[in-house]
Every structure is written in structure tokens, then in C-alpha cells.
């Protein structure tokens, strides 16, 4: 009923504490404290004051973003300008001051807009106490597994115009997603190579629109390709129903919104 709160000086210690499996990690608090307030209280709340979690540093073609970096901190960093459109759409000012990049990866439907952008960009996740990084898509497929995210390595798009982000909500300027879309369409000689389209609010976690990716791969970003991608956008996806939109509605409009995003990217 009352949780034990354990505060560690280093990430490594916190990761060891998490390994036992009965703890929940407290980052910005916007998800965990909401649950605690509602009576869903974990036995142990684990946190760390390790400053390395808040570092942002370039790593080759990518940027390494500490899991504890807040949306506001991300928005203040010019290296991460390509993520600003997505980060700005997360919550209101208070949520952005509190919510972290790492926490956003675990936000339940319909939240997690930044994770959509990161997924579209092919970001990788560095787990505390583990060497190397694994694809974000892997983590999103099984978020219940315990482990502590140390950082996210996000490839910087070579051409800023090759990445687009769109969030559709009913309330402005702040509302939860009916659908959010990240699209990364790198081009070589006018052809799309390595298309990645990610949807938010179209599943339990952000996911890739594989059919739309296939429709765009190797194509020029023209009206015909955009129409084909829009037509197959929801293929193989079973979006959830909630108070914002029904599954049917999401399936119907996701292609329309994808088309609009792609058209705006085509115009540059």
C-alpha cells in the first residue's frame, strides 16, 4: 500500500535494484505518479540522481540522448532541432518540464508522441548495464520487460526535409493523439531509400506502418506514391478504440493524415 522509495546516486546502482523485478523506475513522474495517485502502488519506487541521464552528446551520425532528458531540455538543444516538432506536441508546459525521453518510450496509448518520431528515425536504445544498443522497435514490442533505459541513440536525418511529424488531436494546442505520424524518407537520386513510417495511437505502443513503407520504398515522392501509401496505411494494423476515436475511425483517417503529411513533405 505504501511504496518504498529508493534513491540511488548512480544509474548502475538503480539498474541493479531494478533487476530484482518488483520495482518501478521513477523518472519524470507523469506516468508513475498518476498510477500511484490512483492506488496502483508498486512495492518499490526506484530513482536515481545520476546526472549522466540528462546528457545530450553526438555519437557519430547519431545523437545520444540521456533517458532523463526532459522535453523542455530537448527543446532547448539545437542539435536536436529535428525532434522539436514532436517534443513540442507532448502535453502542456508542465508535462514537458517533467516528462522525459526515456519515460515517453513507456507511455501507454494514446500517449508517446516523441517515441513515434524516434521510431520513424530508427532510434536505438541503450540499456543500463548492457553493452551496445538495440532497436527501439524491439523495446516497443515488449515494454513490460524490466530493465532500465540509459539513453536513446537517434540518427540525425541527413536532410532535415526528409523527416516529417504530424500529430492529430481534437483539442488545441494540447490534446491526446487521435493519431500521430512520423515519416523518415531519405532520398538517393530522387528515390526513397530506407522509408520508415511510424504511427502513434494506432496500437498499444507506437508501431511501424510496414505496408506504407513498402509502397514508398524505391519510389519518387510524388502524387501517385503518396496515394498508394495512404491507401495501404492501416494495412495489418488494428487500432484501439477509446474516448477520442474508434478503431474504425482511426483506420479510416490514418491514411488521409499520412497523405497530408507526405504532401507537406513533398512541397518541402
Amino acid at each position: 500500500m505504501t511504496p518504498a522509495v529508493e534513491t540511488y546516486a548512480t544509474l548502475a546502482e538503480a539498474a541493479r535494484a531494478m533487476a530484482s523485478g518488483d520495482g518501478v523506475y521513477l523518472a519524470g513522474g507523469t506516468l508513475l505518479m498518476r498510477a500511484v495517485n490512483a492506488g496502483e502502488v508498486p512495492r518499490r519506487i526506484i530513482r536515481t540522481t545520476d546526472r549522466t541521464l540528462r546528457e545530450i552528446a553526438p555519437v557519430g551520425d547519431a545523437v545520444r540522448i540521456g533517458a532523463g532528458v526532459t522535453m523542455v531540455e530537448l527543446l532547448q538543444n539545437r542539435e536536436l532541432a529535428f525532434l522539436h516538432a514532436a517534443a513540442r506536441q507532448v502535453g502542456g508546459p508542465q508535462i514537458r518540464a517533467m516528462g522525459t525521453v526515456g519515460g515517453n518510450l513507456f507511455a501507454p496509448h494514446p500517449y508517446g508522441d516523441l517515441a513515434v518520431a524516434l521510431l520513424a528515425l530508427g532510434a536505438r536504445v541503450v540499456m543500463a548495464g548492457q553493452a551496445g544498443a538495440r532497436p527501439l522497435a524491439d523495446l516497443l514490442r515488449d515494454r513490460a520487460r524490466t530493465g532500465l533505459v540509459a539513453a536513446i541513440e537517434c540518427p540525425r536525418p541527413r536532410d532535415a526535409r526528409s523527416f516529417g511529424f504530424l500529430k492529430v488531436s481534437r483539442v488545441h494546442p494540447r490534446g491526446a493523439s487521435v493519431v500521430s505520424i512520423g515519416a523518415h524518407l531519405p532520398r538517393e537520386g530522387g528515390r526513397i531509400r530506407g522509408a520508415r513510417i511510424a504511427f502513434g495511437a494506432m496500437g498499444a505502443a507506437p508501431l511501424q506502418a510496414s505496408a506504407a513503407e513498402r509502397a514508398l520504398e524505391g519510389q519518387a515522392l510524388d502524387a501517385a506514391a503518396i496515394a498508394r501509401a495512404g491507401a495501404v496505411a492501416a494495412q495489418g494494423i488494428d487500432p484501439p478504440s477509446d474516448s477520442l476515436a474508434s478503431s474504425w475511425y482511426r483506420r479510416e483517417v490514418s491514411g488521409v493524415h499520412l497523405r497530408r503529411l507526405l504532401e507537406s513533405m513533398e512541397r518541402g
Partner: protein
Amino acid sequence: MSDGMIEFRKEFFADERDDTLNEIGKPTRRQDILGHVTGRSPFYDDHLFQGLLHMRCARSPHHAARIRRIDTSEAERTPGVVRVLIGRDVPLNLNTLLSLLDFGIDDEPVLATDRVRYRGEPVAAVVADSEATARAAAAKVRVEWEVLPHVLDVEEAIRPGAPVVLDIYPGNRFIYHGKYDHQKLRYGDVEAALRAADHVVEGRYQMSPIEQAPIETCGAIAAPETNDRFVCYSSTQALFFSLATSSKLLRLPSSRLHFIGGTVGGGFGGKVDSIHEPLAILGAMLTGRPCKYMWDREEEMQVGAPRGAERWYISDGVMRDGRIVARKFVGYFDSGAYTRLSSYAIIKAVGHLPGPYTIPNVSADVSCVYTNRTPATAMRGFGITGVDFAIEAHMDKVAEVVGMNPIDFRILNAYRDGDMKAHRRSAKNCALIECCQVVAEKAGVQLSNAARTASSRQGGGGDRGRLPAHTALDQSGRVEGFDTGSYARKAGQRPATQHQVPAPVAARASPATQAASVQSRPRVEETRVAPSASQTTQQPAPPQQHPAPPSAPPRSGPIRFSSLSGFRRR
């Protein structure tokens, strides 16, 4: 305040107004604004008490169920729990809000004992030394349920064989005036006028329940005072209503209750139901300690009574020139599982029909329907807002049929000073025409010459000011043998004893006893308004009135507001 937000059109009705107003039209400061901007306005939860206890309810997960057993032992054993209340701890565990106005029959328990009728209905209230403990212990209240069939749609609820929500209303409809299963309006002869009309335009309009969603959730804190009274800080919008309701349910003289309120963190109608005060005071009575009963946000949204859903069917008879000659309403208010204020909302609604238009033939059958949904209550103009949505949407539809622009059409049919309205009052100080003219001007809509030069003060009265020569009456929805309880009783006709509610069917009732209880229910005539000529053109004798005693001695009990129940002699 910027003056641009309000525009005064003082050219209208200038001769009717003494324009020496000192305040209206000028910015002014609210008297409570200093408290608001300093954060010092005392909302109910802004009172600190040493040893405050927190109350939280265990609630039904089912839309409808019989309660076989409530086991509070595990909750009671939880460290920090001081007391667990169930229905039998409430001195009078049955109420209807408007009983204070002598309108309606007690139908709703504070804590359900034998049956639940909506999801979220409270069955036990845990009092603990912290909010978290109360929450955890409320989850440990074990209830043995026997799930019952439920009904969530108004028209399904009034079909024969639908699950009965409240035994005292076996047709799932509130009984008006002890006689009808709906509130009636009859003015002129609608069926004849519909037959004579050039067009008949029908429409169906539905609105959903709307939660008031105040930022401050509903609640109350009660504490024993040193003078044998209980103080109660409340978010109520209706302080004396809540005081009297608490007095009734706790069987305490109101002189022992000290209510403090008036600082309400948003109400919009959702804070009149007096749900929290009786339980908070009871918690303080039974523990001797200050007790707070406050909804969290989820409760506010799930069990906080919303503006009820309404469904309206409108049939208009209209002539080619755009005059509406008949308007017929059939309306269903979704009261949810209990009456609360829906019965009264319908009286307001029917008094408002047919909207601000002069129509010589109007009829309405409006039912207050019980379903297994969250009980509905007041919200901003309730009873009016929903039907106005229906009326105005229908006006646009009818305008299209007769090929008029919708503002011209409204001006043509608008009531004017001196016109007779369907509730048999003369219209005065009308201003719809002038409003429409300003709207047309702002919207750039070109009005016809007649509409542009029309005035609320011209063209009214005369024939339009007279009652219809003939009003078609009928007995549809007549209910026989209904025990109306106290509200419809003439003053002094019967002693003011508590109304006898049919005994609830015992838990685990055998089919035989259930059948018996069905037979013992009042018989409801299931006659419906049939759109046949014979029924509406014949003029049956006026409904039989029970003779009232010539001189009624003053009656003890609640004050009567007879205009509410429609008995005031005119």
C-alpha cells in the same frame, strides 16, 4: 474589461427602458476576486482538521445486480480503517432529491443494500486515516452479486418486458401528477392541423449525457463541533437543500447542522445532488472525528450525475408560405437509475415548448425514463438546452423544405408581444425578431423585406393572442391505481406519513414470489398515442379529478411548491 466583448443595441426598445443604469454596461470587479487571485478563497477542501478521516466508497461494477451479501470484514481489518459504513448505518436510507419540494417518491438509497441499478452505485463507505488507506480498503469490500439484466436505452426501457429499473415505476417511467406516465402538453388540435398542412417534416434528435466536469471535484468535510452540532464544509451549489437533505437522511434536526459553503470550484449544476454531505456527517457522527468525503476525478466522471441524455421526435406541419401550423413532440429524458432532478427538468422542458415561436397547435408527450445509467441531474439550463438543440436543428430542416432562408423562416414564425403561448401565458417583451435581424446583419444574410421590417411589437395579439377554440384531449399513458406518495396529495388529504414504498423483492426470491410481486405492482395502462384521427379529434371528458376537500388544514411536512407539480390554480 474590453468593451468590445459586449455590444449594446440601445436603439431597440429604447422607449421601454429607463436608461439611468449605473452599473450595467460598465466593467465591475467581482466581490470575491481578491480571494481568487491570491488563492485564498476558501473552497471546502481548504479547511485543515487535526485527525481528519477520509471516506471512500466501494461501488458496483455492474449496471444492475442484486446484492446477496456485503462482506466488509477484510476492509475493516485493514490497518488505518476506522469504520466501514453500509446501508443500515444510514438512519433513513432512501431519498429523492425533490422530496424537499414534495415532488416525487423516495427512490434512491445513500448506500445500496439489496440492489444496484447503475455501474458505480455505492454499497459501502470506508472511513480511514488516509486517503490511500480508504482507497485500498474500499477495494477489499467483498460483495456477492447476482447480475441482473440491464437496459441502457430510453426507448428499449419503455418496451414491454424491459428490465424494471425501479419497482415503484414498473413501466420505467416517472408518473406525473399520479396519473400519466409522461408529462403532457395539449394545445389546439395537432393531428388535424398536421393533416391540413402542406408539408409534414419529421426529425429525430439525440444528445448524449454531458458531465459538468468542474475542476474542483464534489465533496464535503464534516466535523463534530463543541456545541452538539456538526459543521459541514461543502462544495454544494445548494447549501440549504443539502442541509435539509442531510437533516432528513440522518434524522437530525437541522438546528444541529452547521453548513458552510458558497465557495464552489465550478458547479454548472453538478453540485446540487447532496450526495456527499449526509455521508460525511454520518462519518463524523459515527467516529467522532472530522471526516472528508471527496470524489476523485474518475468518480466525478463516472458517477457524478451528468446532464441527462435526451431523445426528441419532432413533427412539424408547415404551409407553403412558411407558417408552422402544428408541432408535435415526443421526448424521452434519460433519468438514469434514479429520479434526482429529471422529473422536474421535463416540467421545465414542456413549459418551454414549442420554443419561441407562435404555433397554433402544439402537443407533447415527454417521458422521464429510468435506465441503468448514471443518474442525471441539473446542468446549465437543463430541460431547455437539449430540446432547444432539437427545435433549432428542426427549424433549419423545415426552412429548407419550404425553401426559405432559416432566419427569414424564424422571423416569420417568431412570437410577438401579445401572442398566446402553448402553456397558456401571453408573450411579452419578445425580442427574438430583433435578435434574428442582428444575426442576419452580422452574418451577411440578406433578409426579405418583410423580415427586415418586422418587429416583436407588431403583428402579435388579436387572433394570435387567443386560446385555441378547440383543444384535442386524450388519455394516452393514463396510469391507474398508482400510489402517488405525498407529492400529488392535496394538502391535508392524508396524514403526512412516510410514503410506503413497495417492499423490495427479497434476495434469492423464488420465481413464485417474484411473480407475485409483479402482480402487486400498480397497473400501468400501456396505451400509446396513436396517430389515428379518431383518437385525436374526439374530445373525451376531462380527466377525472379526485375531489379535494373544501378546506384543507395546514399540513405538516415539507413546504409545497405547487407550481412545480402543476397544481396551482390559474
